[in-house]
C-alpha cells in the first residue's frame, strides 16, 4: 500500500485496493476525520506504524498506562501487548491503545 496519505476527509474510504503483502494487515484508518489506508505488519505496534508513516496522533507514555493514544477498533481484531489502563467496559466498547496494539486479523478499521 502507499504511504499514509489522506484520501478522503469524511465518509468511508474508497481507496483503490493495493496488494497487501503476506503477513500484513489491511488497515483502514480514520485519523480525526482524515482517512488513510495502510499495510500493517503483524509484529508492529500501531503507534510505531503511524510514526513511521509520519501520521500524527496523540500519545504519551508508550507503556499502556496513560490512555492518551486510545482509539476504537470498528472492524477486525488487535492484540495488546500490555494494558494497564483499559477496563473490561472499555475493551467491550472497542477501545484499544495504539502504542500496544498489533494486528490479529487480515482487515482492520480503526478510528481516532
Amino acid at each position: 500500500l502507499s504511504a499514509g496519505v489522506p484520501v478522503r476527509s469524511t465518509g468511508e474510504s474508497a481507496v483503490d485496493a493495493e496488494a497487501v503483502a503476506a503477513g500484513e494487515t489491511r488497515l483502514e484508518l480514520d485519523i480525526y476525520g482524515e482517512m488513510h489506508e495502510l499495510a500493517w505488519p503483524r509484529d508492529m505496534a500501531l503507534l510505531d506504524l503511524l510514526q513511521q508513516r509520519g501520521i500524527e496522533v496523540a500519545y504519551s507514555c508508550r507503556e499502556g498506562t496513560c490512555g492518551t493514544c486510545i482509539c476504537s477498533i470498528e472492524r477486525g481484531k488487535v492484540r495488546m501487548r500490555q494494558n494497564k489502563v483499559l477496563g473490561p467496559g472499555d475493551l467491550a466498547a472497542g477501545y484499544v491503545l495504539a502504542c500496544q496494539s498489533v494486528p490479529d486479523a487480515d482487515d482492520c478499521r480503526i478510528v481516532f
Partner: protein
Amino acid sequence: MTTGLDAMNDALEICSDLGFDMAPGFATHWAMGAETIIRLGYPELVHDWATRYRVIHKHFPRPASERPIDPADDASWMGARGDFSRVGDWQAVFDRALAEQPWREVLATWWPRLISGMAAGLTHGLIRTTHAVRSIAVAGDTPSALQLHELATGLAYWAGKYVEQPGPASLAGDDHLPDLIADIPRLEWEGGASLRDKGSFQRMREMPGWPAAISRLAKPEDISSALSDLTLSFVQVNLAHPDQFPVPLIHGVTAPAALRLMLQYLPEHLHTASFLAVWQADAALLSCFAPPRASEIAARPAAGEVETLEPAELAARAVEHGDEHAIKLTEACLREYALRPDERYLLLPERMLAKIPRPPKGPGH
C-alpha cells in the same frame, strides 16, 4: 488584540459541552490548558489550541442530572460524594449554588467538604477548580455564565471523584521537607499503582508506617514557605526519576502550586487544613508513582552547575510545545521560581518539554 478574558470565554464556548473525562477516564484538560496559556502571555493562541484539543481527544459525554442532591442535607450530599456516576447531579448542585450565591461563599461552604479528597482524580478537582477561579478573578464582579459553569464543573469533578485520602487529622511532627520524602513508604512497585483505583488509598492506609510517616511533618509556621518546600521537594523528586512516565508525578508540583493560588480566596481558618490535605495528596502521589530512590532528595545545584532557560523563553517553548501538562507544569514552576529562585524550578519543565511528546497538529496539517 485578544484579551485574556475574551480568549477564556472563547475557549469556554468551544469546549464547554465536552465531558468531564477523556476516555479511558482521565480528566480533560482543555479549560486548565487554555487558562494557563493565557497566563503565560499567549491569549491569541487559545482559540486554535482549544479547537485542536477537542478534536484529538475522545471525551465521554456529559451526564445529565437525574437524582438531585440536596446540599442542605448531609446524608444526601455525603451519600453522593465520591460517586462519579452522579457527577451530573453534582454539576447541577454547583450550577445552582453559583447562580444564587457569590462564588467565594460557595467555595467557603464546599472547600472543607472536599479537601480531604484532594488526591482523587490525580488532584484535578483542585486544579480545575483553581484555574476556573483564577479566570473568574480576572473578570471581577462580572464573570460570564460560562466561567461560573466552568467553576461548577471543577467542583463537580472534585465531588464526583472524591475519595477520602489517608493521613492524619493534623500535623504534629518535628520533621521537615524535603528530608521526610525519603521516609514515605511506597506501594509495592510493579510498574506503578493508580489513583484511579480506590484500593490504592486503602492500601496506603493499611501499609505499616504510612500514616505515621505522613504525620511526622511539622505544622507549618508560614503556609507560603511550606508550599515552596513542598513544590520544590516534588520538583526534585521528578528530576530524580527521569526514567518514569512523568505525567502523574508532576501533579506533586502543580497541585500545591494550585493551592497557593486558592488561599487568597479562602477563609484563613482553612489554610492549615488545606496545606495538610495537599501534603497528604502529594504523599499519595509519591507512594503510587515513584519507586524509592536514594537520590530523590538532593542539594540545590551549585551556581553555574546547571544552565537553565530564561523564564520568558521557557514559557514560549511550553506554549509552542502544546501539551497541556508541559504547559501547566511550566506555568506552576515559573510562579514558584518567582517566589523562591531555585534553578530546579526552571530545569524540570525544560526537561519535561524534551520528554513529553508533542500533541498532533490535528486535521489539515
